[in-house]
């Protein structure tokens, strides 16, 4: 496999490309780029009963986006398995040191194996990171009405005040999570 296909892309390649998806989807069919709506669509498929928020025609409103998200999984498979970068992610030395002090030492792969292996779900910290973190992502994006793509990129691209507030919230929460919550959680076994 040629090395160029395996290597990760620098920010100045990935960033502009990521920015193209909001206008592209708008142009293809008036679709608003945003991934978290799919969590709602999936709930609307599975368990909408008695909840007005989930009682709508997901086939009409969500089919394109559920298809889009299926594509994301395929893209992850292509870039993360077939054309996998064999090297660890080249994060800053200071981050390596900070993570080591939190007990995260295995820096291979895209995520720490210590936290995201199946065996991790048998530990309190693994449970909080995977199940608790997932819950907060789902609840928070629904409450905010969008995530990094829907607010952070689509909403900001449409110059909407709510999305700028949401983006500030994302970062405030991320800082709290990184400096308060994560050190507490990673200290648990």
């Amino acid at each position: 496999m040629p090395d160029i296909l395996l290597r990760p892309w620098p920010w100045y390649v990935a960033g502009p490309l990521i920015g193209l998806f909001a206008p592209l989807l708008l142009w293809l069919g008036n679709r608003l780029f945003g991934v978290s709506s799919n969590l709602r669509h999936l709930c609307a498929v599975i368990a909408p009963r008695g909840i007005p928020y989930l009682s709508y025609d997901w086939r009409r409103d969500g089919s394109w986006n559920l298809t889009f998200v299926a594509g994301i999984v395929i893209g992850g498979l292509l870039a993360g398995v077939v054309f996998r970068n064999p090297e660890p992610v080249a994060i800053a030395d200071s981050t390596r040191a900070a993570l080591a002090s939190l007990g995260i030492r295995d820096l291979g792969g895209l995520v720490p194996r210590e936290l995201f292996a199946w065996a991790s779900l048998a530990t309190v910290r693994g449970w909080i990171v995977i199940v608790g973190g997932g819950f907060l992502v789902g609840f928070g994006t629904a409450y905010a009405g969008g995530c990094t793509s829907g607010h952070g990129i689509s909403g900001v691209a449409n110059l909407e005040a709510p999305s700028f507030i949401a983006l500030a919230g994302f970062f405030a929460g991320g800082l709290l999570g990184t400096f308060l919550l994560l050190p507490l959680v990673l200290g648990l076994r």
Partner: protein
Amino acid sequence: MPTSAELRDAERAESTYEWDAAPGSDPRAPGLWIYLLVGALFGVVLTKGEAISWFRIQEMFRFQGFHMFGIFATALPTAIVGVQLLKRRWRRTLGGDAIVVPPKHLGSGVRYGAGGTIFGLGWALTGACPGPLFALLGAGVTTMAVAIASAMLGTWTYGRVRTRLPH
């Protein structure tokens, strides 16, 4: 105070157009397959750009590296210029429909600040926002299926308690 029936009607109206635009009416509009292709491209870019890496997200929140900031700093201007050009100049979709971007309702703004902060906490823990959750699943981090299921439960729970939350 709006009555519960009014709230329900408002929710129904919102549910159809808040996040996803109406389907294109023109038969020339592309079929669903195009979204599978575009989604796959997005997944490749997210993954190759390492935006789905827990390590990169930690580096970002610790302000120790430029990578993720560089991604946002180039993605946002690209998206802004693209969307504004489409809205103001081209004005038409591929299928010939008028470009419509339904505005988000600001309201008190509480939902954006509070919801955003709650999401941010989860983002720091999982190292993944919704797009990356799915990309990581494809990239072989299979426990992300559990995170996705839990995120769905979070969204469902929001649906349950929605009327009791400040928006």
